[in-house]
């Protein structure tokens, strides 16, 4: 289990925990990010301040603070 921000671009996994507080948690959920959803890390900016992830066809941009609160069990990781 590790936060999204510890993963590399291309990494895939299943969400095991979301530590964010409401209302962010609710927002993430309504975008399809919940315990058990599969996510893939698509991109981050040069300074790794903003991340883009994908889950079930939805692409979501979030800041490192929010990304840090999402923990995944990595499945396929290129290194």
């Amino acid at each position, binding site marked *: 289990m590790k936060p999204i921000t510890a993963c590399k671009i291309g990494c895939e996994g299943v969400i095991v925990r979301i530590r964010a507080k409401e209302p962010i948690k*609710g927002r993430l*959920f309504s975008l399809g990010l919940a315990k058990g959803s599969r996510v893939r890390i698509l991109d981050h900016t040069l300074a790794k301040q903003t991340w883009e992830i994908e889950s*079930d066809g939805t*692409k979501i941009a979030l800041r490192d603070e929010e990304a840090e609160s999402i923990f995944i069990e990595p499945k396929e990781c290129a290194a």
Partner: protein
Amino acid sequence: MKKIRVALAGQPNVGKSSIINSVTGARLHVGNFSGVTVEKKEVFIERGDYEIEIIDLPGIYSLNAYTPEEHVAKKYLYEEDYDLIVNVVDANTLARNLIFTMQLMDMQKKMILVVNMIDEVEKQGGSIDKGKLEELLGIPVILTSAKEHRGVDEIIDQIVATHESDKPKNKLYYDQRIEEQIDKIVKVLHKSPHFKDPEYARFIAIRLLDRDEDIYKIIHDLPIFIELHELLGKIYRELELEYDEESTSDILSDERYALSKALVMEAVKKPEVKVSLTDRLDRLLIHPVFGLPIFLFFMWLLFQLTFEVGSIPMDMIDAAFTEISNVVKATLPDGAVQSVLADGVIPAVGSIIMFLPNILILFLGINLLEQTGYMARTAFLLDGFMKKFGLQGKAFIPLVSGFGCTVPAYMAARTLKNPTDRIITMLVLGFMSCSARLPVYVLLIGAFFPTAHAGNILFIIYISGAILGLIVAKILRTVLFKGEPEPFVMEMPPYRFPSMKALGMELWIKTKLFIKKAGTFIAGASMIIWFLSSYPHSGTIEESYTRKIEAVQSEEAKAALENEMAAKALENSYLGRIGKTIEPFFSPIGFDWRMSVAVVAGLAAKEVVVSTLATLYAVGDADERSNTLIQRLRDNVTFKAAIAMIVIIMIYSPCIAAMSTFWAEVPQWAWRGFYLVYPNVLAWLMAFGIYRLLDMMGY
């Protein structure tokens, strides 16, 4: 005729507006939701005995509303009187959309599910089993593609059918343990006369478990509140312990999530996962290294095109209006009517219409950015950067829209949830030069810079405005508002080829509005300016000059004297007097009274700046050879004063329409007052600084 009111609800970008636009035989009406300036699109359709009214609600991700716009949609769904809900979902992301559908189903209103964008799913080899979905959800389902006009009119038939049918309403059951608690809450609710209706009581109970603040407020003032409050506390604890979750809201979410997964599993044949166009484009467009340079290149290109392509028809339009003016001069007898038309209204309207091509190109560009989905990427790219200035990435969207028009940009700031972020964004939005300011820039650049650099100068002006905005935002954040900007979580919609029809419509509407404005508001304003600049006639000036003119022999001397007379008369006019009164205020930045008047008139609308300059410099100029406004400006205005004018236009208060939008959006008097004063003070100070600097550098 009987009426059916339909609330059209769905997550953002599912194609609600496209559906409404493609319903056959519909009358569209655009207004505002009562009390707020969120655009409200309604269509009216007649079908059989019914008049059907469909209201396009703002996109909403879930009933746990987040942004101000979502609150508008939620409030409508909760409080307004309508007969049924049409819930539009995106076939591509059905699982996530269905979670919201389930929340809507909890309301137990009559409901129809419209699965839009079916074309995209089918193109990739997937399919959706409509019958299965209907069976599992218990509500009618229609598969549509607004793009291909498939199934859209079926929606209307289904609305009538559902309205007429008395089929019992569907009910969504949760886990037994949750249902038991719902029943307990319902029992207490029944004690109040407000919640006698079992369906409504059930809905309230579910929303209370979902920790809905708005519902909590409703029960807060009721006599049953104490009993309910105690019960809820107990239920929250019990359920949270039982499910090992932090909140009952999470438990419900998990339930809905599992249910929607199961539904999708049953009813959807997933397309094979391929690398989509969006993925491929994103690899380049939001590349960690190349993303930003590419974005800057796009912006630069936009301003180049705006200037270069936009200037092609300009001379033709200019010539056409000069011709009209000459015809008027030739046909009408000399006098006030001829003068007001030929010297006042026609040149003024012409000087504005001339810029229509520029404005359309800029608008088209910004619309393209928005509709293709690229704008969301720019928010992603710039969030880190924006955060340094105390803003967040999403604020970028209203800021870029501000280059088009400040009015919708103020409204776009609604997507920012945090009130502080919103007010800061709105306070600096005026520094993003709107397209109405473009004519002033184009005119001054044309007069004082070589043509080869024009596009670049324009780009620099816009960029400086943006940079100034960021700096001011930073100052506001550190001085006036403590605390962090709101978190940034945003959907990146797939890239879509924009609908040409929709783009064409937007441009056409823009053109129509612009010409209407030029023909009414601007023509009216220029008539006032003309009147103020032509009256009162001073007998003494005319007499003394007429005698002098008769006395001299050479044609040249005559022309010179005529010029002088016109200039004297203008200075003596009402406008001249007003100008002279305010001139001391503007003279430190090198303005003559005419520029001062133009800038002040620009508070009504920025286009008026150009038309006022056109009128004022035309009246005082009887020289036929230099009859372009550009030439007149070169003769009368210094380079440093022109730059100071650009700076003023860039920074000072936007037009009346924008100012009143700000007032409508911001209820606090302190901010309203601040908003009226600070841009003007800042504009003057900046213009003064730059003017003095240029002066020292010897310009």
